[in-house]
């Protein structure tokens, strides 16, 4: 059975509602395919059962854009390798927007045109770029 998820809400009970047991509430609303009614399921989890020691995942605001541009880069890489191997390519919104043999000239143009926006700049090469920071100094979190 397939269903579309309509909403997800997260709440928190007040301490006085459940004595001293503070709970987190997760509410999922979904509508199964072929049904007109929306169903709602809620979970209540006592806060003492939530592992508060675990590290929160803080995604960099540009990471989603990076995934999109890198996917676009790999999609057109075979063509780029035939046409302009060794050059540098710039990708924005899933499209090739500029290319140049001079990496820094390209970076300067991109900075001028799309300052503050994520634009992937990468060398057109079959191998993925890899760096080795051998120093313990570079290991600090």
């Amino acid at each position: 059975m397939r269903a579309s998820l309509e909403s997800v809400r997260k709440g928190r009970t007040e301490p006085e509602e459940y004595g001293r047991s503070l709970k987190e509430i997760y509410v999922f609303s979904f509508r199964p395919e072929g049904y007109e009614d929306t169903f709602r399921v809620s979970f209540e989890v006592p806060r003492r059962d939530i592992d508060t020691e675990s590290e929160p995942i803080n995604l960099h605001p540009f990471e989603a854009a990076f995934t999109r541009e890198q996917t676009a880069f790999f999609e057109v890489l075979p063509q780029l390798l035939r046409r302009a191997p060794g050059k540098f390519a710039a990708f924005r919104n899933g499209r090739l927007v500029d290319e140049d043999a001079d990496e820094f000239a390209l970076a300067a143009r991109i900075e001028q045109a799309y300052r503050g926006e994520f634009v992937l700049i990468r060398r057109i090469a079959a191998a993925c770029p890899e760096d080795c920071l051998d120093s313990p100094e570079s290991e600090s979190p």
Partner: protein
Amino acid sequence: MIRDKLGTICGWDRFAFPAPVVQRISLTDLAGNAHPIRWPGLLDTGAERSAVPLEVCKELRLAPRDWRSPRGFDREATPRRTPLYYLCLLPNGLPRATLLVYGVPRTNVLLGRDFLANLIMIVDGPRGRLRIGRSTILSRILIPCIGLR
């Protein structure tokens, strides 16, 4: 041991060797906007690429231009995806360098082999000297002939 004895005779100790540090580095983006702080730079021949404090990139409102997972010194470490930024490094007394650098949480600039690629660095341990200078055709000929500048 011989070195220690020599040090005693000559009046210097084995810790007199200078740290490979460039005292003040200005960091600017490719549009010419400079960060107000001049950062100390630590020369590190073990690092393939330079790294700057992430707060510089944030305060200059730069967007990263790529992300990579650099391997660490033990090569077994879990790769951590790290943003890369284009920056100009203007070290005091040395030529400027435009580089693609890592933005990492740190309080100094790590000057890697990409920065050193256009410079000559001479370490003279017995004399306790460290020289860093421009790489010119003349210096490439003269330095092997006459030793340190």
